[in-house]
């Protein structure tokens, strides 16, 4: 039983890096999937809207940990053994897709209908209308809640520890198991999480302020 040394700290920093990798992976893939969910939720075809709504309801109503268990342990039973990182990334991607899809659906639908009517009257296709007229306006509104959600995802990567993936939470457990200094070890882990999340939270709030105030003044 020794004390907390630089070696331990470096170990935690490395694990922090994996936390970041997992976050980027989950959020990146989740954004792609979330975009598809948003398209489906705002589709013209009724059954596509219905199916995507069921998907969103199921994912939003299920603990992320259960999704992770299903992907990691569940798939293993049927012979698909995923590496812990991949299983965690897929679970978080599914989680992100439902929440981001809903956030973005709200933003897209908050752009007045008259905007898409005007675009379609000019002969633009549905897709051109979305890309050139709706999304640029929706993105402004979507940025603060999206960055806010990124913070949630970052913190939720800690659940990957139960699959044995050595990210920051798992790494601090490992160290604590040998040092038995929970206040010190988990305190440091918490500080590292905070160091990652706080700037993002601030960014989200700053963006929101900018959105509320930053309307161009008439020349």
């Amino acid at each position, binding site marked *: 039983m020794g004390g907390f040394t630089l070696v331990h700290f470096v170990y935690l920093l490395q694990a922090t890096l994996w936390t970041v990798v997992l976050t980027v992976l989950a959020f990146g893939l989740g954004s792609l999937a979330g975009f598809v969910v948003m398209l489906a939720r705002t589709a013209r075809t009724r059954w596509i809207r219905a199916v995507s709504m069921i998907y969103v309801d199921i994912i939003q109503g299920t603990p992320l940990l259960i999704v992770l268990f299903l992907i990691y342990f569940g798939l293993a039973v049927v012979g698909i053994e995923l590496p812990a990182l991949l299983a965690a990334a897929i679970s978080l991607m599914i989680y992100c897709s439902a929440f981001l899809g809903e956030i973005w659906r709200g933003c897209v639908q908050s752009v007045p209908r008259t905007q898409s*009517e005007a675009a379609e009257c000019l*002969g633009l296709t549905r897709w051109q209308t979305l890309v050139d007229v709706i999304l*640029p306006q929706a993105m402004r509104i979507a940025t603060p809640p999206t960055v806010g959600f990124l913070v949630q995802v970052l913190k939720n990567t800690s659940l990957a520890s139960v699959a044995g993936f050595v990210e920051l939470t798992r790494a601090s457990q490992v160290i604590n198991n040998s040092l038995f200094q929970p206040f010190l070890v988990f305190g440091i882990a918490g500080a590292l999480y905070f160091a990652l999340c706080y700037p993002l939270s601030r960014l989200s709030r700053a963006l929101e302020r900018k959105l509320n105030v930053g309307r161009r003044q008439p020349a």
Partner: protein
Amino acid sequence: MSAAVSLRDVHKRFGEVEVLKGVSFDVAPGEVVAVIGRSGSGKSTALRCVNRLETIQSGEIEVHGRRVDDPQLDLRALRRDVGMVFQSYNLFPHLTVAENITLAPRRVRKTPQAEARHIAVEALARVGLSDKIDAYPEQLSGGQQQRVAIARSLAMEPKVMLFDEVTSALDPHLTGEVLKVMEALAKGGMTMLVVTHEMAFARRVADRVIFMHTGKVWETGAGEMLANPQTPELREFLANGL
């Protein structure tokens, strides 16, 4: 006889409510037709049916020989022929005036950037706003925004222009500049279907006036009909000053 726009016995329901109850009228090429009537009489709905922003339950609509009520309709071809200007301008707030105007030419007609800019310059000259080409919509007055909206529509060289109460959201001192642009357009031979509350404009500029009442064409005639209404409903409408 080939009308630019023709409606034949058009019926339109929103759910249970029948809003158009057999509307028929023609607009000849180059003709300016004003549509007047009380709030809720179905003026906007009739206009929106012409470029298929609304689909109809029965009847026929034709624009330059193209059946608008055909389910197989080439929507984008229709909209290349028909421009529309709304009461609320509906400019794209994230784009400059030039970008608002050139978006459709670049996307729909694949006009190269430089040429598109030229189109914007010309369209803005027609509405007297050449100096606002790089402004954003919110930097403009309502009247200026509406003129940009007209320019944006003109840039696609439509054969028919639909106007839905385009001055109703404007302060009285700003309506004049928009009406002047529309009058010039009319003089230039544009086919126009104009829903308006501006009786003076209807009388002076329109070749024909259509009075709609409870989802029907109630009375129609030249501008003089406003001085000499035949039906009590039109008389009352005119007397109550809207």
